[in-house]
């Protein structure tokens, strides 16, 4: 018998339908993955199932039945009784899904108090046991803590604990690990699966990540623009997708590119014993000890080389990337560019350095000035060095835009572009001055898989064409496979492993690298 039955579901936002005629079932104890890219309607479906559509969205048709019972027929009170012990939900964003004003103990107990007849003592015991189960050390004391005292991964565990405490028959997990780094992601997902297995809960997993589907789902339903595209058992579906869209999704998974032999040359840029410290937060009366984000790192990059800088969150990789562009001041060591020490240069020397280097940021939404037209954004770097007339700048910007596939969109503002298009603009801005060195800081992490594939291709093609050296900062080993010549692994502000791509990926020497590789969700069948 199926726990959840969705038939001909329609969800509308005003006059527009975001989900059309969607039907599926989730069987007892089964994990069904709703897969799709942003805008496919998968999250709205999850919210509709538990009856919590956000304001502005409404269910305009179809039937949702939980354990054979139609939800629309239930009174609000009956529906509430169902939420928790019947259906539980884990949200995407661990930073906002726990009430910041309540101790986690109170938040965990709340569901128990509402749905179970237990005295306070047993409730507390149950909470402690559950926290212990999800791997929170010292659970008794931690019950008294507030959410902000935990890291994102911990919060997601607590969230999970709080939901699973009620032994729901159906667990709805809406992109539960998207906001976490690779290592944590793997841990949390395994934990979720284990708990569900122990308690016999079915899982409705909402995700955009095919790797995750491959590893954790029994069945998968691929959605595109509000409609089901393809449905079936997870492994065969991914191994032999029938529908073009599914095929595109699978094709978008990273694949290792050919390794290149680069001519030996003097390093273009070189960090020697570079350290970066953030000033501690001091008050009027004392100065806190500075936090060392990068500790004595030496790294050289040769002309035309693509180096991937890999590490979990907090490893210092982004800080190192910025320090190598002198966007952050070094607290120790030195930085050499074409053999010149630029660690503390100013004025014309610094300008020369800046003219030769560029950066592409992670978030295409915040890296473009929303008040400038795309053409002006791309033309802006040509202001320097001074001398180029404005029409010439504009012409070059147009040409560059055409080159990144945005020909004719120069008059638009960033908000009129999609995420992928914006990242193309950012790349165009970075490349229009023909830099010798580019830092790409998680440049594709925020994009949907298919778009990511295209942007990586663009970046790779441009690199091959223009021959700039590139430091590719990422937590995603898949991207590394596609583009990198060399891989550098960072942990806690230090480099722990470094070597040619194939060597590092195929025969990792350091434990941390191995853990990262294990956690990275690749399609086993197609790797």
């Amino acid at each position, binding site marked *: 018998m199926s726990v959840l039955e969705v038939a001909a579901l329609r969800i509308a936002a005003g006059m527009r339908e975001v989900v059309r005629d969607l039907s599926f079932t989730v069987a007892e104890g089964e994990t069904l993955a709703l897969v799709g890219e942003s805008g496919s309607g998968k999250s709205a479906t999850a919210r509709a199932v538990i009856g919590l559509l956000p304001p*502005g969205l409404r269910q305009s048709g179809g039937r949702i039945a939980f354990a054979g019972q139609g939800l629309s027929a239930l009174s609000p009170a009956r529906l509430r009784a169902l939420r928790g012990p019947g259906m539980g939900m884990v949200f995407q964003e661990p930073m906002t899904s726990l009430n910041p004003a309540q101790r986690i103990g109170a938040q965990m107990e709340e569901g128990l108090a509402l749905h179970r007849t237990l005295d306070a003592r047993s409730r507390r015991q149950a909470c402690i046991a559950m926290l212990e189960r999800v791997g929170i050390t010292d659970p008794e004391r931690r019950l008294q803590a507030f959410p902000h005292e935990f890291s994102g991964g911990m919060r997601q565990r607590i969230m999970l604990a709080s939901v699973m405490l009620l032994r729901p028959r159906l667990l709805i997990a809406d992109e539960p690990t998207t906001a976490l780094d690779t290592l944590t992601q793997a841990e949390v997902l395994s934990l979720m699966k284990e708990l569900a297995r122990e308690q016999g809960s079915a899982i409705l997993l909402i995700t955009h990540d095919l790797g995750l589907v491959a590893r954790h789902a029994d069945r998968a339903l691929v959605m595109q623009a509000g409609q089901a595209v393809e449905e079936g058992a997870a492994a065969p579906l991914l191994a032999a997708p029938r529908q073009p869209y599914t095929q595109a999704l699978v094709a978008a998974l990273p694949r290792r590119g050919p390794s290149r032999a680069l001519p030996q040359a003097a390093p273009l840029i070189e960090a020697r014993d570079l350290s970066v410290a953030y000033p501690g937060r001091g008050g009027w009366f004392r100065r806190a000890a500075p936090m060392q984000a990068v500790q004595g790192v030496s790294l050289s990059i040769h002309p035309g080389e693509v180096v991937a800088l890999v590490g979990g969150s907090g490893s210092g990789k982004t800080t190192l990337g910025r320090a190598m*562009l002198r*966007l952050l001041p070094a607290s120790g060591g030195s930085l050499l560019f074409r053999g010149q020490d630029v660690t503390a240069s100013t004025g014309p020397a*610094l*300008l020369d350095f*800046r*003219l030769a*280097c*560029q*950066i592409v*940021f*992670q*978030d295409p939404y*915040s*890296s*473009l*000035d929303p*008040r400038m037209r795309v053409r002006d954004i791309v033309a*802006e*770097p040509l*202001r*320097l060095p001074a001398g180029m007339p404005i029409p010439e700048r504009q012409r070059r910007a147009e040409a560059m835009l055409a080159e990144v596939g945005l020909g004719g969109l120069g008059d638009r503002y960033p908000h009129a572009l999609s995420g992928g298009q914006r990242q193309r603009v*950012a790349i165009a*801005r970075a490349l229009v*001055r023909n830099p010798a060195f580019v830092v790409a800081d998680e440049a594709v992490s925020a994009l949907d898989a298919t778009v990511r594939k295209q942007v990586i291709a663009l970046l790779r093609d441009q690199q091959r064409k223009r021959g700039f050296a590139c430091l590719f900062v990422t937590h995603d080993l898949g991207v590394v496979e596609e583009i990198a010549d060399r891989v550098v692994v960072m942990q806690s502000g230090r480099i722990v492993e470094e070597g040619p791509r194939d060597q590092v990926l195929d025969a990792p020497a350091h434990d941390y690298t191995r853990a990262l590789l294990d956690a990275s969700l690749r399609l086993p069948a197609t790797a």
Partner: protein
Amino acid sequence: MMRLRLNLVIGGTLMGAVLALAVLALAWTPYDPTRTNLRRRLRPPSADYWLGTDEFGRDVASRLMAGAVTSLGVAAATVLVALAIGIAIGLASGFLRGWVDRVLGAVNDTLLAFPGILLALGLLAVIGPSRSGIVLALGLAYAPTVARVVRGSVLSIREREFVEASRALGNSEAYTLLRHVLPHTAAPVTVLATSLFGWVILSESALSFLGLGVPPPAATWGNMLASARPFMQEAPLLSIAPGALIAICLLGANLLGDALRDLLDPRDGA
């Protein structure tokens, strides 16, 4: 969306009406607003004097119209002064940070801890009681608020990556500040300016009420209200009319401010 439009329409209509009254008053008023007539004191409304006369026999309707010119003019000028000072301070302390920010912050705190009345009186007494005095005094009194808002938005904008991108391009700090930071303060500052406009009208009338505002016999709504107070019982209209106009003007400013906020900050419009 519906609310936004309603706010815009009502707010715009109210402000427009008051503005029209002021523009009209520049060209024409039923009587000379400062012309006294001691034989016609405190007359009730009539066909000749639509809103009656005040304690000097001056036509109340004419004075209200002239008061619109003064009150709106003072408010507009004050807002400009407050914006000019506040934006300069806010940009400097938000963008430069460090000790500049600390010093400006301390000065700002001091000004915020200072009742505007005293600041206004002090400055007015030094400069001499005049329109420019009250504009400067209130402008200084409100500048810290502007500075605080500008600083806040500068602090959040300077963390955005396009500012860092500008720096990575080799652009100078000044260029980055003017080209990429300043334009983004426009939205919060516009919203604030609209509210400020209302607050200044309110403060000017409060100061006039305490006897510290634009000096009579020039009519402002505030000093009309203050002079009407002793005749509250005999001629209640004398108190009610200017107060109602202040309220209408404020309501207009508030509604317009709300509409602007919704327009410029799409997050709230959803």
